[in-house]
Structures are given as structure tokens and as C-alpha cells.
């Protein structure tokens, strides 16, 4: 069975910084399998976040092709790209990116509403997800009333609730203390096993490497190891 989820073929990404060109990724060839639990590691500026953005369809490569299963992402229109993200990708950001005026419940509910589901049909699912990330007693609170760790749990729940094939987590532990970081990683590992969604981290947090199955090292936009 072909369990290839994402594949990169000679992908490069060049940013224009002022008058200069900055090459963030150079000729990347890569495959991500369904259900994997992996990370991109490397120093700042090595291209980790750019890789995640390309996988998530938030950005497009300057050259080369990215495939989601057999679909070439660069051939998708803006609306189809939005649909691709909506149905297949869950994002977890370093700064959580929760919607400030929404409660925990509403933040987690939103991706389901965007997928055309009615609130009354998914209420239990959302509450169950809130319960899984241990925030049932905080369900009515707004992000501003939560700690960093709690916000990241909400972000995880929001990413997982729609049952995506792939979760992209950009430095999810960077803003958390050690204790919270470990709790988040354990939670994500558990949910990865439970939901079978592939989880791809970008991180330079060494704690993460203890949990993952595969680690891809990046430096100056090139893959320097894949283990």
C-alpha cells in the first residue's frame, strides 16, 4: 500500500530580502509517510519553517514540485489550496494563534464549522477533544485567560479536532517551560498514536528529539541528515 503523504521533488525556495535574494531551501527531495511523527531540526534560518509552510500550502516553492498524495500542490487554485488546508492539515503555531475573541470551545469548534459541519452535530466531539487536552474546566475561557501551556493545548485540540492527515507544528514548545513542553510532547505523541495523523515538527528543542521517530536535519536550506 502506498502510504506516501507528502513528497518534495527538487524543491527550492528563494525569498527576496530588499535587493538581495535569500535561498531558504535548496533542491529538497523528501517524503513524509502517513502517521509519521517526525521533526525538522536545525538552527534559525535553516529553512524549517519554510518547509512546513510549503507542506501546509501556505507558501509556494520557487522551483520544484510538492505533492500531497498524487496532487501537485502548485497546480491548486487559491480556493482549492484553502480546501486542502481545511480538510487535510492541522497547524500548531509557536505563538498559538488562537482567535482572541473566541472561547476555548469556539476556537476548537471553528475548523469543523469551516468544513461545513453544524455545531449541534459536533458539540460532543469538540467537548471530547477539550477533555483529551485536559481543559474541560477552562472550556468557556478566552485565550487571554489561559497560560501558554493551556493555549498550546487548545491549539493542538484545534489542529486535531477535524481529524486531519497531517499536523504541522512550528516550534510548538518554544514559548513553553520544560514541564509544559514535555506535557505537550507527550500529549501529541499520544494523540498521534490515537488519531494516526502524521505530525511534523519544526524545532531546535532537544527535548522533542526524544519523542520523534524520524529527524531531518537542515542547514542553510539543505538536508544534512535524515535519521
Amino acid at each position, binding site marked *: 500500500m502506498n502510504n506516501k503523504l507528502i513528497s518534495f521533488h527538487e524543491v527550492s525556495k528563494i525569498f527576496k530580502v530588499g535587493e538581495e535574494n535569500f535561498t531558504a531551501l535548496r533542491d529538497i527531495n523528501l517524503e513524509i509517510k502517513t502517521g509519521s511523527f517526525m521533526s525538522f531540526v536545525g538552527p534559525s534560518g535553516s529553512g524549517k519553517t519554510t518547509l512546513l509552510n510549503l507542506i501546509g500550502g*501556505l*507558501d*509556494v516553492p520557487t522551483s520544484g514540485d510538492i505533492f500531497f498524495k498524487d496532487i501537485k500542490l502548485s497546480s491548486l487554485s487559491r480556493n482549492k489550496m*484553502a480546501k486542502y488546508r481545511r480538510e487535510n*492539515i492541522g497547524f500548531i503555531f509557536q505563538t498559538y*494563534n488562537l482567535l482572541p*475573541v473566541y472561547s476555548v470551545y469556539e476556537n476548537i469548534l471553528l475548523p469543523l464549522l469551516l468544513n461545513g459541519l453544524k455545531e449541534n452535530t459536533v458539540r460532543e466531539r469538540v467537548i471530547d477533544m477539550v477533555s483529551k487536552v485536559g481543559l474541560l474546566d477552562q472550556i468557556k475561557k478566552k485565550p487571554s485567560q489561559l497560560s501558554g501551556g493551556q493555549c498550546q493545548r487548545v491549539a493542538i485540540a484545534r489542529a486535531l479536532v477535524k481529524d486531519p492527515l497531517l499536523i504541522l507544528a512550528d516550534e510548538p514548545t518554544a514559548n513553553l517551560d520544560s514541564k509544559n513542553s514535555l506535557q505537550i510532547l507527550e500529549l501529541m505523541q499520544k494523540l498521534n498514536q490515537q488519531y494516526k495523523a502524521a505530525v511534523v515538527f519544526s524545532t531546535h528543542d532537544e527535548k522533542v528529539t526524544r519523542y520523534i521517530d524520524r529527524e531531518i536535519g537542515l542547514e542553510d536550506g539543505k538536508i544534512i541528515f535524515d535519521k
Partner: protein
Amino acid sequence: MNWDIAKKNFFRQGLRASLNVFVTAFSIIALIFMLSLLNGFQAQATRNVVNTDVGGGHYIAPGFDILSPTEWEDHTVKIPKSLLQLDDKDKAEVLVQQGQLYPNRRLYPVQIRGISMNQSLLKLPLDNLFNFQKQIDDLIPAVIGGKMAKKTHLNKGDILTLKWRDKSGAVDAKDILIVDVGDMLNPRVDDGVVWLRLDHLRSLTDRAEEVSWVAVRNYVGPILGFDYQSVELLMADLLSLWRQDRINSKILWAILMVLVCISVFNTQILNIFKRQKEIGTLMALGMEPKRIVRIFTLEGALAAFWALFVAILLGLPFFIWFHGVGFDVSHLSESTLPIRETIYPDYQPLEIIYSLVIVFVLIVTAAWLPVKKITNMNPTMALRGRAIK
């Protein structure tokens, strides 16, 4: 669902949304207030000229030109029956002659205006003239306006010499008594004008039943031996000033609109600027760009609606109150504008509706434009908060 999200976003923004609404509401109130005050000023000044001089038009002696004082004596005619039979509330007979006044040993050229005392068409402060009982042989009663009194340093009760020419061209002079210094409102009937009773002036100049013009309430058709001058013609200078003023007011309106625009754009752009990450997050969650634009535009529409509502809520009592107290412009007494009493705003519904519609469209555009720009860009730019700078 778009509406639910927009509503939730708007109502839960708290202070930010309230500030946005209040800034816009106050801008709307200021805009309507300024425009209405200007309208009120023009309407009131026009009314003053109509009430004190023009009436509904003049039947004027052929050849008479108010700007040619040396020819005034040559252009007076007997009032025809058709005008004579008009009711006193519908006509005012006026005889104008050139004269010289000698206040405080100075010579002051004046326009001697005789007006029928029974008329009630023109509102002039001439009661003391009407009530003066002494014989004309002793003293000629006269009324002057406040502006004239100030210029000539004359007061009520002063006696001074007035010189004129009678119908046969003979120069005559007599003492006049200032029986009142009236508040004329209109400089055209104040500055350089000495008001006499029509019967007195006719007697002094030997012009029985003659007039320079007859002001009427309404046009009564062509009259042989008289030219009719309409309100528009008689007020041509003022209307031209108003037209220029309208252009100025349009410029003022445009300036105010620009200020409102800047204020609205500033708050809206700042709002969107602060919410770039939120827009980026919605894009990352898979919301279509068009839908994001729709939601934020709906939020803008909600802000506009509430701004209009608050403007009505706060503005209406203010406008009603201000319509009662008005705006004191007594400081304009030195100007040549025919107004010096309190101005009351004149609210023009159509103008207000135009302004409100423009502000509404503006707010919605201000909400639509930056979001449209953001959603056209790469979502990563929005997520980094760099889509608009």
C-alpha cells in the same frame, strides 16, 4: 455562518470596536453639525435680506439704479393704482433720494429712504418713526441703523442737518432728529441709510405719490411704467456670494469628509493591521480568501451601522438642543454679511443622507480594502503580521 462569525468578532472586540464606533459617530456628528450650521447661516442671512429689503421682488421706476445715486432724483414715478390697491401687508412703497448728513461738522453722503408707515411687508425697526407726532416743520424724525450710528457717532436723540434736492433741483436742508437707532440686521439698509417716513420725504422733495420702487410680497404681473425686479435679480450679489460660499462649503464638506475618511481609515486599518495574524490564522485553517473578505467587510458594515446608530443616538438630542439655543454671531456686526443675530442650524435631510451614505460606504470600503489586500498575499505574510505595514 459568515454573519455569525462577523457578529461575534465585532461584538466581542469590546473597547476596540467601541472606539471605532465612537470615533466614527463623532465624526458624523461634527460633519452634520458644520454643514447644518453653514446652511442655517445662509438661510438666515437670505431671510434677513428678504425681510428687510427685497420682499418678494420690486416694481421699480424705469431707469432707477441703486448704484447710480446721482440719478435717483431723475427716476421716480407715481405709484399706479394696481399697486396702490394692494394690501399694506403685501406692499411697501419706497422713495430713495440722495442726501448729505452733517454729523459732528462732517459731511456724510447718505441714501434717504422714505417708506410707507402702514406697510408690514418689510420688517424694519421703524416704530419710533411711525409714532413720532411732532410737525415736520420743527424737526424731521429719522431712524438710522446701528452700523450707521457707529460710523457717524450718532445716538438716539441727536439733532443734525440733512441736505437734499427737491424735485425741481433746489437744494434744501433741515434738521433731523434721530428718533431711534435700530438693529437693521441687513447692512444694505443700515450703512449710509437714513430712514424717513414716506410722507415726510415726499413732502420735503415735492414728490407727492411718487416712489422709486414698490416692494411686493408676490409678483402681480406686468405693470405699465414699472420694471419688475425679481428676488433673484435683487439678491444677485448675495446669491452669487452664496454660490461661491456653496463652493467653499463643498470644499469644507470635502475637507470634513477627508477628516472623517482619515479617522475611519485610521481606525479600520489599525484594526485590520492588529488582526493580520488572525486573518493569517483563518487562512491557515482553510477559510477561503473570499469568505475572509466577506466576514471582515460584514464587520465593517456592522461598525458603520453602529456608528450611524450612535451618531443618531447622541447627535439627535444635541442637534435638537442646538436648534433651540443656536450659535451667537453678534461678533459679525462689523461685517457686511446680512446677519448678526444667533444662527440656528438648518438640517437638510438629503445632505445628511448623502453624508451618511458616503461615511457608510467609506467604512465598509476601509474594512474591505486592507483585508482584500491581505488575502491576496501569501498567508505566511499575514501570519507574520507583515501583510500590511
